């Protein structure tokens, strides 16, 4: 039993990071691609800019998630960046 | 023609840069070269690469020039690398 909890203790943070990288990273990229629409440029250009920027953002997020010291920090970092993006994206969705 | 010039310059450039490294000096000459020579090789190598870039950009413009430069540097570094491997293999087997 204790070996099982041991295992969970070890595997848990890793799984958390993998989820943060795959899903969290994509969510961040998607948010950024919407948030870019608040920029004062024409809609088609903003849409294309958002798409172009999303892949480096996704890749950067994955690198971040696996380079920080703990899974909690990984999620925290994503959340810190996501918050302003979410505010911007929200204003786009509400418009 | 501009392709051939660029490739030759890139091979010369990477050849110079390679021979300016400690490891290759030991592999090719069996000893470290004087500091002045090493320095000269480094300058000459970098200058040859810049010249290759310049020759391509002047004739093809920045867009195509940079693309071609990237291709030629990749190919040239591979050629220099292969030559160095071949040289050291030949050298070690005849000795």
């Amino acid at each position: 039993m204790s070996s099982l909890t041991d295992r969970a203790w070890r595997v848990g943070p890793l799984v958390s990071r993998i989820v943060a990288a795959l899903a969290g990273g994509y969510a961040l990229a998607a948010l950024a691609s919407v948030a870019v629409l608040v920029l004062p440029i024409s809609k088609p250009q903003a849409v294309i800019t958002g798409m172009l920027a999303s892949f480096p953002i996704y890749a950067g997020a994955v690198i971040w998630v696996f380079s920080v010291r703990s899974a909690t920090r990984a999620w925290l970092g994503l959340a810190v960046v996501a918050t302003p993006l979410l505010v911007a994206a929200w204003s786009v969705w509400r418009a | 023609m501009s392709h051939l010039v660029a490739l030759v310059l890139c091979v010369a450039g990477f050849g110079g840069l390679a021979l300016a490294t400690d490891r290759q000096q030991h592999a090719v000459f069996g000893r470290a070269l004087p500091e002045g020579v090493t320095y000269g090789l480094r300058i000459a190598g970098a200058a040859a690469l810049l010249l290759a870039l310049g020759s391509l950009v002047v004739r093809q413009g920045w867009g195509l020039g940079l693309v071609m430069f990237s291709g030629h540097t990749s190919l040239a570094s591979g050629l220099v690398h292969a030559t160095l491997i071949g040289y050291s293999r030949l050298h070690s087997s005849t000795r």
Partner: protein
Amino acid sequence: MSRRTPDEEPRLTGRGIRQSMSDLHSWAGLLCGWILYAMFLTGTVSYFKDELSQWMRPELPYQAQVPDQAAVAQRVADELGTLVPGSPQWSLRLPDARNNSVYAFWRSPARSADGRGFGEGQFDPATGRKVASRDTLGGDFFFRFHFQFHYMSALWGRWIAGVAAMFMLVAIVSGVITHKKIFTDFFTFRWGKGQRSWLDAHNAFSVFGLPFHLMITYTGLVTLMAMYVPWGERAAIKTPAERQQLSAELSVFIQPGRPSGQPAPLASVEDMVRQAQARWGRDNVGRVTAVHPGDAAARVAVSRGEAGRLSMSPQIMEFEGTTGRLLAVRESVGPAAEVRGVLYGLHLGRFSDAVTRWLYFLVSFGGTAMVGTGLVMWTVKRRQKLPDPSRPYLGFRLVERLNIAAIAGLSIAMAAFLWANRLLPLELPRRADWEIHVFFIVWASALAHAILRPAKGAWVEQLWTAAALLALVPLLNAVTTQRPLWRSLAQGDWIFAGTDLLCLALAALHAVLALRTARYRPSPRAAGRARGGPVAGGKLIEEGA
């Protein structure tokens, strides 16, 4: 050998960023490695897809000179008028320096019962008729396979390709961070040192082509970005007018409008293409697209060819269909769209002259070797740590066998595709599909062989098979067509001669690999400890051994 994390230490904590990046690199690379290898190799070959398509249609004569595009456009437009009357839209890719046929795509008339909604075909520039040549997908098979695979919906295939490309992007970035001595080790190769030689080879293939590898991975994602990240578009683009505005930034697009219902013949397509030739150059017209041809509301767009310009952004001349009057010339798009056009253009490399195309091919081939050496390294690294090398654990065996089928097996399957093109009976129904079935049947057989045979034997046998199949392609071509190597060389037909010679060169490469593999002796475990001469200093380059 600095690492050796005790198992009880929680993973990914209290270790350097380099070690985390090394693990990320290994796993991101491995999980999608086989798909990436196939994407890289078939994509590499696609830089010569037009040439390969010509080779695979030997009945079409060698095109020493590009025919007059205006006359060709008129011929094929007339033919489409009788072949698919009432089609709401068709589009032609005109012959150019690399294409000796016209590719046409059309939407079926609404009343069509075939249910597909569209059709496509290759047309002969000289007659305007469908080409009288064997039924084949040609080089387009490898091209399509490299981003949407086969036997599945294109949508699924493209999602898989996108995920693999994203893994690749992460693998490249984490690989660069891992490899801290990227410049001091630039020309380092340690021969005959087992794992370390593999690492050096992997580094060389990665570092020399690094700008290309980064570019090709990112731009590959860009080509399909509207599918992968549709959220901005969904949030902002709501009216049909906005949608059209966006489409016009990305592709050749003309306001479809509504058909008037009044039949009216199309004005001279030849004259329209002539005007485009005057603007962009005689052989530099790309496509002709007609909307509602045969209706009074018809529109025709003639687009610029791709030669000599980096960007794939649409440049078009739009004509009124029934009068041939020039309505508009659009030669620029917005800044973000132009960036996207350049990135797209960089991926396809259609602007290339012959030398640049070869550079693309060679560096991309280096990228294939990068993925291949990376995959093999995964097993080389772990073999030394096996408790009993003769009986490896399941995961190891899985990776080992998949590597054989994915690398050596793919070469065999691709060569078999060329063989099928020459050997399948011309009257076979659905012949083009069968060429592709042969490719997959052979590939699956290679996997079965890799599973059943001992690993080393499987490698050697498959590499020799690939070498033999490739080496015999020129002979096969000489026997089954009127265009053997000596004749194409004499005629200066570099499309046929080039394909035959490239097959010979690739055969030689596979033979060398087969010989080296046959001679290879996995270094005994002791050798792993004893190495580390004065130069290497016993310090592996952070490869997370």
